[in-house]
């Protein structure tokens, strides 16, 4: 499975489109034996209701400069949300679908 196969794909829930996949969030464990850096696994998917998607992650980080651009890009990505892996019913080249009652979390990256 390649990232390029997933980016921009419609995200469905109960047959309805709720947005488009804009990014994958990974969890890098502190350590994996035999490696200098732990092997990342998928933590969740970031969904934007519009195709405009995300630019430089203004909606995910506490960036407010340059002020006009920050507001503009955050407004363009309004309504974005994070869905954790366990709330996905399907994720692959065939499409991305959320489970019934999947929880929508803030897309902000923790500090």
């Amino acid at each position: 499975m390649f990232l390029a196969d997933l980016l921009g794909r419609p995200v469905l829930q109960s047959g309805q489109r709720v947005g488009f996949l804009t990014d994958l969030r990974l969890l890098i464990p502190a350590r994996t034996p035999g490696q200098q850096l732990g092997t990342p696994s998928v933590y969740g998917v970031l969904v934007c209701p519009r195709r405009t998607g995300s630019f430089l992650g203004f909606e995910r980080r506490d960036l407010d400069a340059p002020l006009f651009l920050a507001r503009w890009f955050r407004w363009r990505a309004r309504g974005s949300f994070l869905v954790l892996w366990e709330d996905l019913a399907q994720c692959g080249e065939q499409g991305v679908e959320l489970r019934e009652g999947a929880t929508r979390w803030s897309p902000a990256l923790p500090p």
Partner: protein
Amino acid sequence: MNMPQLPMPPARPEGRLLDVRLSLLDRQVLDVGDEPVGVVDDVEFDDAGDGVLAPGTPPPQLRNLVHGPILLERIFGGRRPRAHFDRIPWSAVAELGSAVRLAVEASAVPVGWLEGWLATNVIRRIPGGRHVPR
């Protein structure tokens, strides 16, 4: 601003969170001696089969960084055969920052398909092309 309206996710296992497109894609890859190796053009995860996820399915892990000439594919679409992808295994990655640093030398990274094909079918047919220049 939508950020304050949604709750933050619950506590997660210890580790660092990273958004692939934001913090990994298009980053330069440097070998252990800071020699440039390539750019992260894509990443490859465990094969998810038909993609249908039963409850409790473990999340796929990132296996390889993919690099190579994919500009035309991004513009015009389509896909090279998977055997032609140039992959760097994640186990060779040492550090993530503004660049991706490897724990190995560039010579240990698999040569790209195009470079290998040119070496075999073009360069070695040129007189003097079969040895290191003196």
